């Protein structure tokens, strides 16, 4: 029974695994082109298992910026996990021990969360382990492949691969912006602020990590005040 649950998790995680391989390949290329070693890139992927946060962290690590900037960038960019974990916690089996909860927490990524939430209300630890294991392997091996490739490929190819990760992020964001005017406005505010921090005198002295944090938080705060979402009795967001 428990073995079957683990197997089902592995199978359900396979699609995520394939997607992760390609995204983490791009991360691997990005990391070594910023000056990290192959081992460092793989270590980051194995311990963090998150795309946007890792992407933001690489320039901060490589330019020798402060640890506070690094911690804050992760706090803001990954703050969504706080809410996804809060939501997942209600779906986990009541039989799950604290140790099992500690282990499952590590793998609560956007995609694993999405698949887990679509699989019932009493999720068992064995199922979650399987569902986390395959994407974890895809993420790690993809990073390794990308980092190695980034080191041996000619410069012109690495330059082209440099946009891959931004292409993927665009593919994630644009459909959401297209669907809702308030989302589009939110993105616009964040981008305008981000550009101010990049190009305006005085403001452009701020390290890049802080620029992302301040721009994103400000945009989300403005939109949360100006266009709050509708919340159902159960506390779910409804459009």
């Amino acid at each position, binding site marked *: 029974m428990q073995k079957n649950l683990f197997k089902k998790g592995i199978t359900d995680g396979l699609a995520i695994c394939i997607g992760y391989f*390609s995204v983490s390949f791009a991360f691997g290329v990005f990391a070594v082109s910023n000056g990290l070693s192959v081992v460092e890139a793989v270590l980051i992927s194995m311990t963090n298992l998150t795309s946007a946060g890792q992407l933001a962290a690489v320039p901060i690590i490589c330019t020798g910026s402060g640890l506070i900037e690094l911690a804050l960038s992760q706090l803001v960019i990954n703050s969504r996990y706080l809410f996804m974990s809060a939501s997942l916690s209600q779906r986990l089996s009541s039989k799950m021990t604290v140790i099992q909860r500690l282990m499952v927490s590590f793998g609560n990524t956007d995609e694993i969360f999405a698949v887990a939430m679509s699989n019932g209300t009493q999720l068992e630890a064995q199922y979650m382990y399987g569902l986390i294991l395959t994407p974890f392997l895809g993420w790690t091996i993809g990073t390794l492949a990308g980092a190695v490739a980034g080191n041996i490929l000619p410069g012109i190819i690495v330059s*082209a691969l440099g946009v891959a990760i931004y*292409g993927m992020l665009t593919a994630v964001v*644009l459909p959401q912006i297209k669907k809702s005017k308030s989302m589009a406005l939110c993105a616009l505010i*964040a981008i305008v602020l981000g550009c101010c921090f990049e190009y305006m005198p005085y403001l452009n002295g701020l390290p890049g990590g802080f*620029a*992302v944090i301040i721009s994103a938080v400000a945009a989300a705060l403005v939109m949360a005040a100006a266009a709050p979402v509708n919340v159902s009795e159960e506390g779910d967001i409804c459009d």
Partner: protein
Amino acid sequence: MISTRFLICLVVMAGVTYLLRMLPIVVLRQKIKNRFILSFLHYIPVAVLSVMIVPSVFYASDSLISALVGFAAALILSFFEKSLIQVACAACAAVLVTEIIIRYI
């Protein structure tokens, strides 16, 4: 050789990310009902990702022109909701072709 500074950075980023995922699962068992917090949460992913793309994408390749062409390709394919891999490959290909044109023609 892995530096001490890198290891400290690794512990900091992995620690923050893990705590964010772990604390609600282990500690909190109640649903958040505050409308403002839920709204903030609703907007933060798009805000973060948008500002991570622009302006950084302009410096993602060897030249501004090829980066702009690559980004334009990504925007067009994303608008038509192509898959992540298709969009990424198209952006890379657009950059490569532009770089070849700039360098050799």
